């Protein structure tokens, strides 16, 4: 299961680390875009397997930010 960015922006904060249990709807990454904080949340529950971005990275709409298992 992958968590995707829903808009273009910079990764401002990553709020989880590998191994964390996340629940559906929980914010996992916060982007900064259009001068706003844009929380990206997990659509399903799972355990964080891999974080595919670093703070400060540019991500586009549809890019994978976190992989869940």
């Amino acid at each position, binding site marked *: 299961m992958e968590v995707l960015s*829903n*808009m*273009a922006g910079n990764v401002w904060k990553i709020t989880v680390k590998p191994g964390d249990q996340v629940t559906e709807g929980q914010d996992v990454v916060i982007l900064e*875009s*259009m*001068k*706003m*904080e*844009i*929380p990206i949340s997990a659509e399903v529950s799972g355990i964080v397997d891999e974080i595919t971005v670093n703070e400060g990275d540019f991500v*586009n*709409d549809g890019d994978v930010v976190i992989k869940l298992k």
Partner: protein
Amino acid sequence: MEETKGTTVETKGIDQTVYEKIQEIKTSTNRPYYAKMKDIGKMFVRDRIKYLVDEDSFEVEDGLFARCKEEDFLPGDAVVTLVAKINGKPVAIIANDMTIKAGTWGKKTIEKIIRMQELAEKRKIPLIYMIDSAGSRLNEQFETFTDRRHAGKIFYNTARMSGVIPQIALVFGPSPAGSAYLPALCDFVVMVNKNASVYLGSPRMAAMATGEKVSMEEMGGARMHNQVSGLGDMLVETETEALDAAKKYLGYFPQNWMKTPELIDSKPPIGGKKIEELVPENQRIPMNMYPFIENIVDENSFFEFKKLYAKEMITGFCRIGGRSVGIVANQSKVKGGVIFPESAEKAAHFISLCDAYNIPLLFLVDLPGFMVGSKVEKEAIIRRGARMLSTVANATVPRIALIVRKAYGAGYVVMSGASMQPDACIALPQAQPAIMGPEAAVNAMYYNKIQSIEDPAERQKFIQEQREKYNDDINVWSPASEFYIDDVVPGDRLRKDLIQRFELYSQNRDILEGKAHKKTLVRRG
């Protein structure tokens, strides 16, 4: 009919033969497909109608006997067309009967649909389509396709009646190929999850034409249309939910474009947190707009429109002080509340709908502007954003813009800001209208100067000073003092203020309409 059981043919009166014929046409028994329908939660066409209409309603039905002769017997030619009362008012209903020839459009189906459309237009009453049909009846194509009164006339009528009478599509089953245009031309489309499917070419046809392998659900399922294509305006799980939704929806509407919605008794809002507590002062932090809406509307009156599509823009009907009002609101919890091509189109659809049927509009503004980037430019953000702007500018219903927090750039303009000539542009004390936010503005105005300061601490100090100076300008008291905005309203006085203003701006509207009345097309794309 029961009382005549056992009578012999010889003693049967002529009226009795009519009742027997009616019974044969209206029954769901001996319809093989009906058992299959029940298993997937589908109701018989006449049960749907019975559930929807008032208990003591009259029913005027034409074409009941279409194709009733023995050699050509197809009950009602697979469609029920009648007028009955909903919420005490007459509404026309056109409902496919899936148990007859899979609800296909045959030669009399089409004539019946057209006749009911003509009646609805003439009487100026709303029209509900209950869609559950496999499309055209191919073995009757010669009698249904080419003539002036053949299938295309149905779409012609639906398109021409847009903005004249409310038209609702309840999609209970398939609506394939040409008939897919029918919901697309209606104002409000409700789809039943898993059962509704709308597509131009079936998965089988796509496989033949292009080789694409795709499931029915992916191709034209209810969820896809509600979340992705925007053809669906509401997703429900059961048929009764769809019927309840149609009834509730009509409650916000007048019977036609020349009337205004009924004023009902006012109910206090649901309560909860104070507005002051709901609106974060830090403009960067997202704010949930839903509790804010609940705080100003009559209890349980908010009826969301296109809930699953472009969630950064909330649209829905409500009652404020008993008055029917359409709300267009930015949801900064989703994508920062930024306007995307889809959100602009969603808003334009909703605004045209309210404008067509004399429903006043309330804009709740909290956005950093339109999205930027090559992706949205390719998706025609300018063209689709301009359509929203044009719809707002041409709307003639009472219009109030409330600046809740930030309102930057063209976002402020299209959200019916003061320059769009609303009846009122008012602000909460937390409001910040500006061409852009302080970060972007300072960077744009002093780019060269900032670059020329070598010491990082000095540079930061300069930026900070300029931002604070800029913030002074966009603080709500500057536009209030210049009378750019009409009023600054404390949160705890907001609802009362809105009730009074909507009452005021509704005065003599009908007289003005006499002079400047214009029909508004309801456009979903």
